[in-house]
């Protein structure tokens, strides 16, 4: 009995460690700031600039949190404050389901892929609500743009992430990664899906060339126009964390996440190796996102929507068709 109690308390300790330190909240916080640094630095290097110093994102965050707290007269106080918190909370929750250290995340069940997809939609809605309730014309205009672009990238993103699940026949991320590592042919079959996923993720994160909602030259800063201080800091953090989680999701679904797992003794050594593999794959996806950002310029709203419906969605359907044929022929 005593012994069981000891084991249980160690389990609880490990779970808490997982939740809050690694790879939980604190790690995600640090890693998102690092991603922002990487984003800005590589972007600057591509323009032959020196770029910001290493601690720049952290300095921005601290400075913003120490600034005066302004709620505009026309804004709806409650929603204005709640929007960034909801967005950030959804992303942090999504991060916990990703299989990071081993092929199962903190809690793995059938359908966790869909839960993560839906959780990743919430920040977009938070952005829309924040812009809408800020009581500023530019904010509302930006919020409307956020909402109207939602479907042009969300449909291809959802569909393309479901292709590996279709080939494998399970909605569980743990099954998908283990299946992918035993059947490397999946990488080739779902390569088209990976490219589509990258482009759609770029739209989801509202980065160039799809940064239409906050087009600086047209509508100042879009939904964020009235945000200042702490709330702006939360939104920026949410944006960075969304990039990490989105890239991590692509790395899990298309690049097999933390696999191949080497089984080492004691078990936490193999967790560390798994986490390193996962991080390397995530950074690779993030690097591709940064390359897209620095190579293109912003397109118009109608161009984006027609691009999504004329190219992205048909290509996604082709990918799904391939997946179904593969499955029909008896799998791989």
């Amino acid at each position, binding site marked *: 009995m005593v012994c069981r109690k000891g084991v249980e308390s160690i389990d609880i300790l490990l779970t808490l460690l997982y939740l809050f330190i690694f790879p939980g909240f604190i790690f995600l916080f640090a890693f998102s700031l690092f991603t922002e640094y990487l984003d800005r630095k590589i972007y600057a290097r591509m323009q032959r600039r020196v770029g910001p110093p290493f601690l720049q994102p952290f*300095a921005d965050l601290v*400075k913003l949190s120490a600034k005066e707290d302004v709620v505009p007269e026309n804004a709806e106080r409650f929603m204005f404050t709640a929007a960034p918190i909801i967005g950030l909370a959804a992303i942090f929750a999504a991060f916990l389901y990703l299989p990071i250290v081993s092929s199962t995340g903190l809690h793995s069940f059938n359908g966790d892929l869909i839960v993560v997809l839906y959780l990743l939609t919430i920040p977009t809605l938070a952005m829309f609500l924040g812009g809408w309730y800020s009581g500023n014309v530019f904010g509302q205009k930006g919020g409307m743009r956020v909402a109207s672009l939602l479907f042009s990238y969300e449909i291809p993103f959802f569909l393309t992430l479901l292709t590996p699940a279709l080939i494998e026949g399970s909605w569980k991320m743990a099954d998908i990664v283990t299946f992918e590592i035993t059947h490397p042919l999946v990488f080739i079959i779902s390569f088209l899906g990976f490219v589509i996923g990258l482009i759609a993720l770029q739209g989801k994160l509202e980065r160039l060339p799809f940064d239409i909602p906050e087009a*600086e030259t047209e509508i100042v800063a879009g939904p964020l126009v009235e945000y200042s201080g702490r709330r702006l800091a939360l939104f920026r953090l949410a944006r960075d964390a969304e990039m990490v989680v989105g890239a991590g999701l692509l790395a899990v679904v298309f690049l097999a996440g933390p696999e191949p797992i080497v089984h080492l003794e004691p078990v936490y050594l193999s967790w560390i190796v798994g986490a390193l593999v996962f991080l390397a794959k995530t950074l690779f996806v993030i690097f591709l996102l940064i390359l897209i950002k620095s190579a293109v310029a912003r397109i118009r709203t109608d161009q984006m929507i027609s691009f999504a419906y004329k190219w992205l969605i048909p290509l996604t359907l082709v990918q799904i068709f391939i997946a179904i044929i593969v499955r029909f022929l008896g799998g791989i």
Partner: protein
Amino acid sequence: MFKGLVKWARIKSPWILHMNCGSCNGCDIEILAALIPRLDAERFGVLLKGSPRHADVLVCTGPVTKQMKERLKRVYDQMPEPKFVVVVGQCGSSGGIYQGAYGVEGGIDKVIPVNAYIPGCPPRPDAIADGLIKLLASIAKGGNP
């Protein structure tokens, strides 16, 4: 310790907002030239922001015209504390060649408090960058928060 951290962050990340209060546009072109990749203001954490709510440093040019006076005040009020004002060009410092014209109020400091002046007609881009760095150095030394 916490105060020191906040101060460090403030010096490391000045986001600027650029406002033309009636200048001949000479100074504005030079401000844009100070932000080009060659001088790379982002090394010092400087970002050009579109909304006064995001900005820490208001960079103004030109003499304040009677029309612009109210707008300048409003933009200044919209910026959250702590905020700093940098004036670029002779006109903004004193009224310059527009001094005494019927539509002109005078220098920027007649309307809002100013932290730093960068003289010249127009100042060179490197002088503008230098002025901003000097402002940051004065904040670091103690000055106002």
